[in-house]
């Protein structure tokens, strides 16, 4: 035993060995099994169904590439849904990222009332999305909601049905729910930045704005990458709130791909087409995460702690 251990150490020390380090593969087994069972196998199933015609009740029958041909070439709504999805993803990111960053930096500080305000900011994180959806539905109600209660005539009262604004309303409500989570990530990130960096900067005469851009932001780069990936992929596959709030109407303004997939599959009972949409969604999601990983160079990520 002793001999083996010392050999191990020797190999590691020279850095020449190719032997695995760290915990054995066995410890990853539960996670791998879980992932395989609940993600990979169903994914394969969806791929198979995308080549079948199936109305849920009957027996699926093989139709080859017909579903793919229809969804991509003969179904104008697919492209509409893709455009809406893009709008939703970009809009959500532009809305959530800056606010989450600023809130996170604020919550990591020492200001007065900070703790109290932080609790308020975190509240949305605790609510179930269905409850949030139903509450906002009441708020946006034309005759009994906030537009009727507030004395501002310029407020629209068809928040959820006016196709010009409903997408922005969705971006706002979804952002309202998810900003606290990302702010939490940023808060943790900021807390890890060593205080002596700020002390040194202060001695050098850097103001708070300068400190933010020269210290906080660069030090947060990995947090920004993590949070951005979660935001982009998360909004790409987002479903709950939009479904509860709008049920997918108006279709030309808010039916993003995940919603389109659900409605095609479970309301229109066309699982073949829904599976094609699902596979497209998976492909876009994977491409996006991989691209983000590559672009950000996260494979080269290093510790950025002071002294490391």
């Amino acid at each position, binding site marked *: 035993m002793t001999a083996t251990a010392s050999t191990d150490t020797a190999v590691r020390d020279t850095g020449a060995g190719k032997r695995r380090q760290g915990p054995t593969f066995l410890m990853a087994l539960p996670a791998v099994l879980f992932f395989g069972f*609940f*993600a990979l196998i*169903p*994914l394969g*199933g*969806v791929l198979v169904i995308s080549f079948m015609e199936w*109305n*849920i*009740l*009957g027996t699926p029958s093989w139709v080859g590439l017909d579903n793919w041909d229809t969804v991509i070439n003969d179904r104008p709504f697919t492209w509409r849904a893709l455009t809406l999805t893009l709008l939703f993803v970009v809009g959500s990111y532009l809305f959530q990222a800056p606010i989450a960053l600023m809130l996170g930096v604020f919550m990591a500080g020492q200001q007065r009332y900070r703790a109290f305000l932080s609790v308020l900011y975190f509240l949305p994180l605790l609510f179930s*999305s*269905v409850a949030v*959806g*139903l509450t906002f*539905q*009441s708020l*946006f*109600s*034309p*005759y*009994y909601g906030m537009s009727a209660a507030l004395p501002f005539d310029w407020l629209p*009262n*068809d*928040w*959820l*049905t*006016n*196709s010009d604004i409903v997408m922005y309303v969705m971006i706002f409500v979804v952002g309202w729910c998810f900003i606290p989570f990302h702010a939490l990530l940023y808060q943790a990130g900021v807390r890890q930045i060593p205080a002596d960096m700020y002390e040194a900067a202060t001695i050098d005469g850097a103001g708070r704005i300068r400190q933010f851009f020269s210290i906080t932001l660069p030090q947060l780069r990995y947090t920004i990458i993590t949070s951005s990936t979660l935001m982009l992929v998360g909004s790409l596959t987002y*479903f*709950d709130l939009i*479904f*509860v709030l709008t*049920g997918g*109407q*108006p*279709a*030309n303004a808010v039916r993003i791909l*995940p919603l389109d*997939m*659900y*409605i*095609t*599959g*479970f*309301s*229109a*009972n*066309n*699982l073949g087409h*829904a*599976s094609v949409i*699902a596979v497209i969604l998976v492909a876009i999601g994977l491409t996006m995460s991989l691209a983000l990983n590559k672009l950000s160079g996260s494979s080269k990520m290093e510790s950025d702690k002071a002294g490391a």
Partner: protein
Amino acid sequence: MSRHRTMRAGTAGVAAASLFALTACGGGGDGASAWILTGGGWPAIEEDLERFEEAHDVEIDVEALENDAYKQQIRTAVGSGDAPTLIMSWTGGALLEYVEEDRVVPLDGETGDLESRVHESVWQNGVVDGSVYAVPLNDVQPVVLYYNQEVLDEHGLDLPETWSDVEDIIDTLDGVDDVDAFSLAGGSIWPAFMWLAYLTDRHGGEGAFQAVVEGEDGAWDNESIIWALETMQELGENGFIGNYNAVTADQNEDAQLLADGRAAFLLQGSWVYATINQDFPEFADSGNFGFTEFPVLEDGAGDPSNIVGNPANFWSISADASEEEQEVARTYLSEHLYNDETVDQMLDNGSLPPLNDIEDRFAGAEAEDFLTFANELAANANHFQLSWDQAISPSEEQAFGDALAEILQGSSTPQDFVDTMNAQ
């Protein structure tokens, strides 16, 4: 991926996960089960099932779901062999599919004396190819025109008997701020199906839609359907309440607008009578709450006695349930359904069970007026049209709703609608 098992309203969202997981949730397990809806007269059905459980010392697991969530989840459950023992449907296209796929069992000779007690016209809805596959479980649900007498008095209006009366009413209310002729939950879309069905029927008779149900080629391209769609778009500009597209029925906003006097009329199903009594008792007890039938179209071809609605909701028994579970369900149907206590409770709610000679039991019921009205409406109807969304094939229902939503939002023309539906 989190996997919720709760079946409550709204969590339908989570069902999206099952597109990946490919397993339907719920159903199965020990003991019989039944899924019902929320609101309206459904709490009475739940209590009835509970009384049956106690009386027969059996277990029936009851889940109450919101309307839209139910329609989406029941299909997945039935398709995956995980259906509740008692499958509720509105008959029509969904029941036909269940029968074609052998998902429900025939009930011939297993329903006790039910067949002799239920109205023949209602009973027939549960019969497919000469066999009974579903039996009615609750009340006849005609769609009627509710009104607020206070609004009518204030603006000197009478109940509309003809379509030109309706046009006069709209003209009168045109100049009035904050009051419109018809409340409509356009955001939920299905209340608009009722308008489409009534207008089409008054204009062209029941044959126009019958051709659609029978799958005739191009049947949607019918002058009566197009007239009805055009009329709805005109009503959208003037007639329906201002923001009708943003009003939803889930939380009974359409009924509230009538109760609050923001609208003079509301076209809705008979279950709204119970809703108004429960949710807006002040209005219900004020003496201003009234109900009447859909007006006559002067030169329309339709029989003015025709009504639209649901003959009832129906129970079927799942072919995937175990023998014991099926037995519990059969006992419930043959021995317990429409027992005296439950019928009395229905009558008190203003729900009209489709039973022969039921009128003998109205006297003294709290809702006597409404029951008498609904009973005469149903009994005198030359044709009782099943709600369109239920009558058409379930795979067309989504396209139908989407196409009608575009009509309501003014983003498509009646001809677009007809073309879309014909292409289904």
